[in-house]
């Protein structure tokens, strides 16, 4: 699943949006992987992530962190989200030192991730490129709405909800920060970045 791919936005905005993913390869290194993925989450939690989650359980906005940690299984896919590259660099160094033996994927601007890997003494192995949206593009919402909705790769965030909450922000009924957290609850995997969403929603509400 390419759920952390295809996030859209400007370079400036995407530089505030990094996702770590950790998982085992089925039938190869999954024995005992639940403890290693739990350790991955503990490393992430030491650095004030914008979000964490497990595809099997939920995220830190709809489930307790204790429950997420307790329910990790060998088929879990666990995540952590950060908003700045300096923290990403520190986390990656700690993950390298922890030597968990699990696959780790970092989603973010390639130029930044490449430099962060270099600084950590890591040679990237493989990449997934996002090569645009094809077909009936007239069915898509505006680019500014897509910047919010594509932060949930499983499309659990409706474009109509973005419009609705932007209206609520304009009306002073909800803050951009709380609207960002409302979206984060819907993205079960915990890869949604509520901090970046709050910035994007504030801009939309001011237009």
């Amino acid at each position: 699943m390419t759920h952390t791919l295809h996030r859209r936005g400007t370079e400036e905005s995407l530089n505030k949006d990094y996702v770590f993913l950790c998982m085992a390869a089925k039938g190869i290194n999954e024995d005992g992987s639940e403890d290693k993925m739990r350790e991955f989450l503990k490393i992430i939690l030491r650095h004030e992530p914008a979000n964490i989650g497990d595809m099997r359980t939920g995220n830190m906005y709809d489930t307790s962190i204790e429950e997420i940690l307790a329910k990790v299984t060998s088929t879990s896919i666990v995540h952590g989200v950060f908003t700045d590259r300096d923290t990403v660099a520190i986390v990656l160094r700690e993950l390298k030192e922890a030597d968990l033996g699990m696959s780790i994927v970092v989603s973010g601007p390639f130029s930044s991730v490449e430099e962060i890997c270099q600084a950590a003494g890591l040679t990237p192995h493989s990449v997934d490129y996002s090569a645009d949206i094809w077909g009936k593009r007239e069915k898509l919402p505006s680019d500014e709405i897509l910047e919010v909705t594509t932060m949930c790769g499983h499309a659990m965030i409706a474009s109509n909800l973005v419009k609705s909450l932007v209206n609520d922000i304009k009306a002073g009924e909800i803050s951009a920060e709380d609207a960002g957290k409302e979206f984060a609850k819907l993205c079960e995997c915990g890869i949604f970045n509520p901090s970046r969403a709050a910035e994007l929603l504030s801009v939309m509400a001011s237009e």
Partner: protein
Amino acid sequence: MRIDDEACIGCRLCPPYCPMSAISMDRPAKVARIEQDECVECGVCLRSGICPVDAFIEEVHSWPRSVRAAFSNPLLVHKETRVPGRGTEEAKTNEVTGQFRRGFVGVTAEMGRPGVGTRFSDVEKVAQALARVGVVFAQNNPVTYLMTDQTTGKLNSEILDEKVCSAMIESTTPVENLPAVIKELREVASQIDTVFSLTLSTRLEPDGSAPCEKVLKELGVPVYINGKTNVGLGRPLFEEVSA
């Protein structure tokens, strides 16, 4: 998913939450309704907790409607692949599995993404286009399981009218076949009633370059500045043997 008419109080809170815009208000009856043909059974309306009177009722569906939840609710694990979500491990574990090797590129068309949804009739059109240029479909992929013929990309006809949030057609092909793949995708893209997001997955060369990136540039395919990087920490490492 359906809404209990007796329980619904017509508060109008739920329609914006539906990713497929399948919930609307029945004004004369003063209740919300779900258009069953558009509902992909993703469960967002229920999980959001937005209904103040718990009027959403999640039903267990039989074949072929059962494929809707399997491809739309990310909390469900495909029983065949044991991978939650809609695809395989693809490049995420490539340093361990060797799924994508040097000289090859992974081509994934995620039908219906972002946020539009897709019928399997459109999934079949794109799968057949890819089959025509000789790609090899990923074996541990839920769409591949629904193919009745992997050499043509033909899907089980019983599911063609079913709508899902998204469905990933995952395949591998030699890098030199990429121009033919892109040509075929350009043609079929004009024949579908939805969108797809295209992913190219590749093993990096020792100098950090990716041969497919140059090919995509020559073909005029836009590549985003951001993407996924497998940093190579998984063990045991897959050892690639040169041909």
